[in-house]
């Protein structure tokens, strides 16, 4: 299946599927092959919304933790954020999230959707299966702190939640990890939530975005 080029594809062609793919299909989204699965490329041909919600669940990510995690990341050429609840980009485009003293999640570069390694490459660390336990949503555009304030009790405005910050908190009454992506023009929040609750949170976010002109979108919104 690796041979399939970046053409319009169907999610059910692949063994790995986003927990949200049916929602996208029902809304008329177009998919492209990405990381051995179908990634939403665009959400119909609507005009560019002020804020966009993009499902990145099929893109690769992995987690490691344990006493050796910091050394292992450095050895693999990945950045290590200085403190818990910070995120940092690596040279190859991956984003490293530091969630605890010794817990790190690595998000694949957004354009390719892939990581340079996975947790099995870190034999002396404990794996965290965040590819499957969590859905990965990207909120991008204008007024993101206002949108999130309808769902979340933590202040996410730029002055107190600058680029590179992470908040592990409750969003619409479910646990979520919100990362303010570093080194990117504009505001981008990556929201990682329980994959089983992805459809629920997706609907909550769309509802919250509506008054700010926010809509569902695909990866084409970014590139």
């Amino acid at each position, binding site marked *: 299946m690796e041979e399939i080029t970046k053409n319009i594809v169907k999610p059910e062609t692949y063994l790995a599927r986003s927990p949200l793919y049916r929602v996208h299909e029902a809304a008329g989204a177009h998919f492209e092959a990405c990381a051995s699965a179908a990634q939403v490329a665009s959400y119909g041909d609507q005009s560019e919304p002020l804020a966009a919600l993009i499902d990145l669940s099929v893109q690769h990510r992995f987690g490691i933790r344990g006493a050796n995690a910091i050394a292992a990341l450095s050895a693999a050429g990945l950045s290590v954020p200085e403190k*818990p*609840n910070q995120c940092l980009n690596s040279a190859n485009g991956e984003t490293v999230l530091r*969630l*605890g003293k010794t817990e790190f999640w690595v998000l694949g570069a957004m354009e390719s959707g892939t990581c340079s390694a996975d947790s099995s490459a870190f034999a002396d660390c404990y794996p965290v299966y965040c590819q499957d336990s969590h859905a990965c949503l990207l909120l991008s555009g204008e007024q993101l702190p206002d949108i999130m304030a309808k769902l979340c*009790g*933590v202040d996410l405005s730029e002055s107190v939640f600058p680029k590179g910050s992470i*908040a*592990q*908190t*409750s969003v619409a009454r479910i*646990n*979520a*990890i919100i990362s303010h992506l570093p080194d990117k023009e504009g505001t981008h929040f990556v929201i990682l939530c329980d994959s089983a609750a992805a459809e629920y949170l997706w609907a909550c976010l769309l509802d919250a975005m509506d008054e700010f002109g926010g809509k569902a979108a695909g990866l084409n919104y970014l590139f």
Partner: protein
Amino acid sequence: MKMMNCPLNGLRNISEFVHGGEVKEMPDPNSCSDKEWADYVFFSDNAISVVTEWWLHAPSGYWFIAERHTGSDEILKTYDPSVLFSERVEFSAPATEVKA
């Protein structure tokens, strides 16, 4: 709604936390009397004073310790449990016969 300072995540709504009971020292289950064990499991002083409690920040799964005054409900400080628990705990083999 009350707020609490999580040592890992900072000041958060109390609804993000789960109470884990008072920090109590477990008597040796293999040598203590039934009464000592029952006291440990069932009884709490419930005094108006500063109590040391377990709290969990649910979104990050992080357990920590809080010192709270039961009269004013003021949370005086919170800290990582390694302050109190730094060494590996072992349990002795059970006595052949446990006497109450």
